[in-house]
């Protein structure tokens, strides 16, 4: 049988990773793309670096507790620019709309895009609209690309990560994925879990101060595949390091924990849309936590683990009971079990 694209190729786990390696890089390999960062960093002149990022949004349902596809498409691209330490400036907006949906729905999405972009002080500067026949897309798909500028001294990359560095998460995990699953409404029970969908611009900019910049090694927003996928990617792309995280220190809200327990999901594998994973040198970690905590989006920020030297790179979880186990790269999205 000929190989075909599986849904899991887009899940952010092992299959996505292999797809990028075996297909994307096979055709488009170059010095910038090969770094596989959330945004490409392009040096324009001695003092100017641009960050450039693009992302498509196909979330279903398009309105969910805590956000909607419009807000998500602006926040997601802003957050991807922030990952390389950029100051987000402008965003483009490409729409694929399904024939027959009410203009009221489109306006509701636009309003959400407008409010989010204005609040974050980024402009929507160009765009495109396509309408496709009914059934060829699910209501509305949005693609946003973003451009930002990166200060001369800021350079975030896998290569900067060293043993003894500490791992910070800016808040409680797994809320977006759980909110989406719940809002599809097939479980027969309700919960107050809200998506964490948010732009992290106000949260991240204050820590990019000159005195911290040399010590901020790497940032990534743990979206699809959750914390588990992000940590595994870091280990895989760096050399000779493992990451050890402590279960006890990973912030997670009670209702998310209960929901995951009930369906047999591992919150480590579930998507976030308003959290940043930051790897920093040990000397500045506490100070950075203090600054993050001053913003409402960072009130639960915590140091959850550290980088260790290791010839057999892996992600290890120290459980509540002091035992250690592997955190594996999720293969595909989580499926509920029989029992």
């Amino acid at each position, binding site marked *: 049988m000929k190989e*075909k694209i599986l849904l899991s190729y887009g899940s952010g786990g092992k299959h996505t990773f292999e797809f990028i390696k075996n297909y994307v890089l096979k055709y488009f390999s170059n010095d910038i793309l090969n770094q596989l960062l959330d945004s490409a960093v392009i040096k324009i002149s001695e003092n100017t670096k641009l960050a450039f990022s693009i992302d498509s949004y196909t979330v279903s349902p398009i309105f969910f507790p805590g956000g909607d596809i419009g807000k998500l498409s602006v926040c997601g691209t802003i957050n991807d620019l922030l990952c390389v330490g950029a100051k987000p400036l402008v965003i483009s907006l490409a729409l694929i709309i399904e024939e027959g949906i009410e203009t009221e729905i489109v306006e509701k999405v636009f309003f959400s895009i407008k409010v989010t972009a204005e609040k974050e002080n980024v402009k929507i500067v160009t765009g495109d609209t396509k309408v496709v026949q009914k059934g060829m897309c699910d209501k509305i798909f949005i693609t946003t690309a973003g451009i930002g500028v990166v200060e001369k001294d800021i350079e975030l990359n896998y290569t900067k990560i060293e043993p003894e560095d500490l791992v910070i998460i800016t808040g409680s995990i797994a809320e977006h994925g759980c909110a989406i699953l719940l809002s599809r409404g097939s479980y027969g029970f309700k919960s107050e879990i809200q998506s964490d969908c948010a732009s992290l611009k106000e949260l991240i900019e204050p820590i990019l101060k000159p005195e911290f910049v040399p010590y901020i090694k790497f940032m990534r927003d743990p979206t699809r595949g959750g914390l588990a996928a992000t940590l595994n990617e870091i280990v895989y792309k760096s050399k000779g390091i493992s990451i050890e995280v402590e279960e006890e220190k990973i912030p997670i809200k009670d209702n998310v924990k209960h929901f995951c327990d009930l369906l047999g999901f591992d919150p480590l594998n579930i998507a976030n849309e308003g959290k940043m994973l930051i790897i920093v040198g040990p000397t500045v970690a506490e100070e950075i936590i203090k600054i993050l905590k001053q913003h409402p989006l960072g009130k639960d920020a915590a140091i959850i683990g550290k980088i260790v030297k290791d010839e057999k790179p892996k992600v290890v979880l120290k459980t509540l009971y002091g035992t250690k186990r592997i955190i594996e790269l999720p293969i595909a999205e989580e499926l509920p079990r029989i029992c």
Partner: protein
Amino acid sequence: MNQTQYFDFSKFKDKKNVEIEVEKIHRLSKKINKKVCIMEVCGTHTMQIAKYGLRKLMPENIKLISGPGCPVCVTPQEYIDKAIYILRNYDVVMTTFGDLYRVPGSESSLEKEKINNKDVRIVYSPYENLEIAKSVNKPVVFLSVGFETTMPAIAYTIEEAKRKNIDNLYFLIGNKFFLAALESLILLSRNFLSPFIKTNGFIDGLLLPGHLSVIVGEKSYLWIAERYNLSGVITGFEPLDIVCGIRILLETILTSSARIQNEYTRVVSYEGNKYAKEIISKVFEAVGGNWRGLGFVPDSTAKLKKEYEMFDAEKVFNLPDVVAKNIYHTKCKCNEVLIGKITPFECPLFEKVCTPENPVGACMVSSEGACAAYYKYER
């Protein structure tokens, strides 16, 4: 209302209380002063022990070994082949629990069929089939797998379909009676007496499945102690439950003759769920059948009773004798892993040839199989 609050398991994960129990286990193990093998026969226990690293908290002479307790692991490969045959030859909606979605048959899986535009849907509860059947104008085939835990809900759905005269809903029955297999397992392990001592030791006690016991009740296990002089503890699934279950087993081994006890009293009763048991026997009967790992087990496989035959997918769809092609690697040691004779690490294929994505044997196929648990958490 926030309904998930009913599922607050935090007190059963409490660090301090787990530590207290582990300390007791260490004290008891010194008194026992010989190797003790405890087998968990439920896949969810296997997963939880691996996920929380509980094996590493045990004293040297207490070995936790995994048994055959996952309905997906023991489902023969030909079952998946039959499902795929129906999908390819009839225009149907096929519904399944998530567990089976990626399980490979001899040449395909439900996931792969779905991308070939087959209508495969994941359901969370068998009742959803009633709604799906009403909403489509074609046959709906539910892949009915699971032990006594899942069977009441399936039997109830079949009853409802009959009462409501739903005539486009069918069940491909792959359900199995776990209790019948448990006896085979115990017998088989005794035949393997000498290799057991060499590798893991004899089974000294059983952690019995929590949720299956909600249905069948404590009294369904009494024969284990009476007939085989073996102790068992019905155990819940949180870390504190599991260490308590182990502690109770060790106390029993040290102080009294074999008996069955119940740690999971918050949901498991002595009698079990009378209504659930009644509806199982109203709709299903037990016949002999094959289990991956255990082979032929008498009275262990569910079959729809005559009055419910019209829901039986095997009868309605014309299935040729689909014989599972023998894809098993000759070096695959699933049979021995399933009965606890060896640990997954001792299988020559583990991690090298056999992985969750490309499983060779049954224990790697299911998310709750012993090999999958060891691969995911304990490498």
